[in-house]
């Protein structure tokens, strides 16, 4: 046995299992996207690139992409900012620190779709507490789930509730692992809290911030279950995300061929976008000369 033979025994089991499980689905999807499989004509025929040309003109799809960009950017940014704020608040000595840390970790442990079910009752216009709270704060009762913009806002609220916890976890872990010396040096140099944060804390968190943002962006882009449970994409298509749209086309309307082409284009766009974002983030947040 040499190292050169041994190394494959480590990598291959996992790699082969993964490839085995997803290879067929991937190849199948590619093949099906070139067919016109739907309820009327089930089966693998061949219609060449027809699905793709149809997709180029499918406004509903492209609108859902734009909507996803908005939703994702809004929620991930909020999650990061809030998560960072919370991590900073609970970093050093605070009363009942453990209790609050555990509490703030809970949301990400819950099943998103089940929480969305609860949120749906929460945002109910007449029977849920959301409007009670709104009136308490001096606002008029709102149509949380039935007004286009508000429905989007509601989804963002739910996402932020769920995933700020994840950012909190990673950023707090990052903060706790920071060495003391730079902070001592900053204190000796007379830096105030804001300066210390901007020049010492935040830059040192860069690697973990990038990881956290990327992971959240990847996961957030798949947004579908919350929409399914809370608004069913509505009102109309106001909260429809690409995943949800593909779901409708494929599993509700059974236009399987078309859904396949939607899936593939979506996959390509997302992979390219996320890779680009990863590189940009790495360059922006890491100090000059540091390898990604």
């Amino acid at each position, binding site marked *: 046995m040499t190292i050169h033979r041994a190394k494959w025994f480590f990598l291959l089991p996992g790699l082969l299992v993964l490839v085995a499980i997803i290879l067929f689905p991937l190849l*199948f999807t590619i093949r099906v996207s070139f067919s016109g499989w739907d309820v009327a004509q089930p089966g693998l025929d061949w219609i060449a690139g027809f699905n793709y040309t149809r997709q180029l003109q499918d406004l509903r799809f492209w609108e859902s992409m734009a909507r996803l960009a908005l939703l994702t950017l809004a929620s991930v940014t909020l999650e990061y900012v809030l998560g960072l704020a919370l991590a900073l608040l609970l970093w050093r000595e605070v009363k009942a620190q453990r209790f609050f840390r555990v509490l703030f970790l809970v949301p990400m442990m819950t099943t998103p779709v089940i929480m969305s079910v609860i949120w749906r009752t929460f945002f109910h216009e007449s029977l849920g507490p959301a409007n009670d709270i709104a009136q308490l704060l001096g606002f008029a009762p709102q149509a949380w789930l039935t007004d286009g913009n508000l429905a989007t806002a509601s989804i963002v609220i739910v996402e932020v509730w769920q995933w700020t916890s994840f950012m909190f976890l990673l950023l707090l872990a990052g903060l706790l692992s920071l060495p003391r010396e730079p902070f001592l040096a900053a204190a000796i140099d007379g830096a105030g809290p804001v300066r210390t944060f901007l020049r010492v804390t935040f830059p040192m968190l860069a690697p973990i911030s990038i990881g956290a943002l990327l992971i959240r962006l990847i996961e957030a882009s798949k947004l579908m279950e919350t929409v399914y449970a809370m608004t069913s994409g509505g009102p109309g298509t106001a909260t429809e995300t690409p995943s949800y749209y593909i779901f409708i086309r494929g599993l509700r309307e059974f236009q399987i061929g078309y859904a396949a082409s939607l899936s593939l284009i979506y996959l390509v766009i997302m992979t390219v976008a996320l890779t680009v974002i990863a590189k940009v983030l790495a360059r922006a947040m890491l100090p000059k000369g540091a390898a990604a």
Partner: protein
Amino acid sequence: MTTLYRLLKYAAILLWSAFVLAPFMWALSTSFKTSNGVTGGPTYLPWLQYEPSLEGWRSLFRADGSGIDIAGPYGSSVAVTLCASAISLVLGTLAAYGLSRFTYRAGFIRNADITFFFISQRIMPPVVLAIPFFLMLQAFGLLDSEVGLIVVYIALLMPIAVWVMVDFFNNIPRELDETAMLDGCNPFETFWRVILPNSKPGLVVAGLFCIIFGWSDFFFAFTLTFTNTQLLPVAVVALNSSVTPWWSLSAAALISVAPLIAVALVLERYLSRGNLAGAIK
């Protein structure tokens, strides 16, 4: 630290705590209601605003038409999640060790590309894979079965294990592996006797993440199981129709998310001990 700053700090913490607790409190309260407590508008306090009842909770254990049996789906979820997480962790950790320690080359594909391949599996939205998985499981007779779901979940969870463990292994100095080899261990013994015993924090984090993401899946359970097997999220969402009373719904939801609170406690322990950072970076 000035008093004003202190006040603001605790105010912020309490505000967010209220936000976190809001849906739970609401569900808790609602789970004890009957129609009186719901139809007239939102009510919050038992006895003062509505008459509490255990109907919501009782309905969870009735297997007849008027309720749902929560024990079955619960058991299925536990079995599937633990199995899939365990297998993903094992396969993923092995692959991660390989990617961390050795150099792979196949044509122009290098280590970084392989790692990227693993992690990029997370980009795939479930909906893309739903139909092909459906056909695949059907061909193998694994539709509507726990085994079928476990297979699917492995593909979902292994990338997570790889992501966490590659970073973790990269933070263990190579010299430790080398010393083990110089002391007579071949690569497997090195991994098993030396590296793995020193990887507990990473494994805990990877394992917990697998469990969290596995437990929470809805979509695949939704599309790939029907009657024989039912996982918890599917059972609960099935209640999300206008027919089911809110109290059953709330009770079911609460009971589903309860176990992961225990996970939160474990995770916080590791966080505070400082073990987490090395695992996640």
